[in-house]
């Protein structure tokens, strides 16, 4: 099970009435429950992955936190069109480090990591429209 597969499964559920999906392969298993409790903190919300994994996988992988969008707007990976991205997959990030900008109307809203960790997935494209609660990043706790 890799992050890409998890992302594809999450995308698969969007726009459907499915509230729970369990997916298994020879080596591991994942259960995704939609509408799980989300904690909000300073504008950006975090959502713990509601995933159950086989004991062997759980032992190898650290907990992850999903950074979601606190508002509707346009997702930008860099400070400006001339700047490099704030973060790349694999980057180690610190708590309060800026991960992206969401521009809504005339507001530039910087979204920060709320934990120390490693970026394991970036779930939106630069310039993509995002909605409230859309998943943006998966951060593996350090």
């Amino acid at each position, binding site marked *: 099970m890799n992050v890409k597969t998890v992302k594809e499964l999450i995308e698969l559920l969007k726009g459907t009435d499915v509230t729970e999906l369990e997916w298994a392969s020879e080596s591991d298993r994942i259960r995704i429950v939609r509408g799980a409790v989300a904690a909000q903190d300073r504008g950006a919300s975090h959502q713990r992955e509601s995933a159950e994994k086989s004991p062997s996988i759980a032992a190898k992988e650290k907990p992850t936190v999903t950074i979601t969008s606190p508002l509707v707007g*346009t997702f930008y990976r860099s*400070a*400006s*069109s001339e700047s490099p991205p704030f973060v790349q997959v694999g980057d180690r990030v610190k708590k309060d480090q800026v991960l992206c900008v969401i*521009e809504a*109307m*005339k507001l*530039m809203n910087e979204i920060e990591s709320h934990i120390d960790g490693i970026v394991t997935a970036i779930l939106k494209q630069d310039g993509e429209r995002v909605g409230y609660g859309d998943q943006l990043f998966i951060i593996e706790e350090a």
Partner: protein
Amino acid sequence: MTRWHLVREDRCPSLTNMEQDLSLFRSVLDGSREATFRVYNWDRPAVTIGHHQARFTPRDEGLSLPVVKRPTGGGAVLHGDDLTFSICAPENGPFPGGITGACTEISRIFARCLRDMGLDARIQGDSKSFSEICFQRSSPVELCLDGRKIMGLAMLRRSGCILVQGVIPLRVDASLASRVFGKEHGSTEGLCDRLPWLDPAELIDRLMAAFSA
């Protein structure tokens, strides 16, 4: 009670204006100031564009104007003779209620000062419209006079603090505006074009008093 740092400047170069706003914002971010309110103008016509606007080319490509990026969002603004301002404050400081609450409260302060000068300024807006040009669009919290937007606001939220940049055009060079944005440019009149008797210095005095109260 918030201790406001008030800055009143006259006409400055466009780049200096943006750098000064950012410098004040950093002073609030690092805690050396509680909140700041700065009023300024422009030493020559210039265009500011939103932080994520990739580029801006005047409609008349032969026109040479400084084009500088704002640290905030929003569309392109032609500055000439303006009442331009910036406000820096913690999110949970003098304007509680989130970003919309802050914009509403700031607009209320301006509306109150304008009403004290005998103008029927109101807060209204229309979030449905969108344009790359600031004064051709409005949001739910825009300051209007006789139904027309007179003040543009743009914002940056960083590390629990907000930077709000705003502008009230005082006198608009309609010919220049047309060369910059085309003939369909939405705002060809500034506040003093419509109300020649209005004294901008009095409005600034009232604003300074309102923010220091």
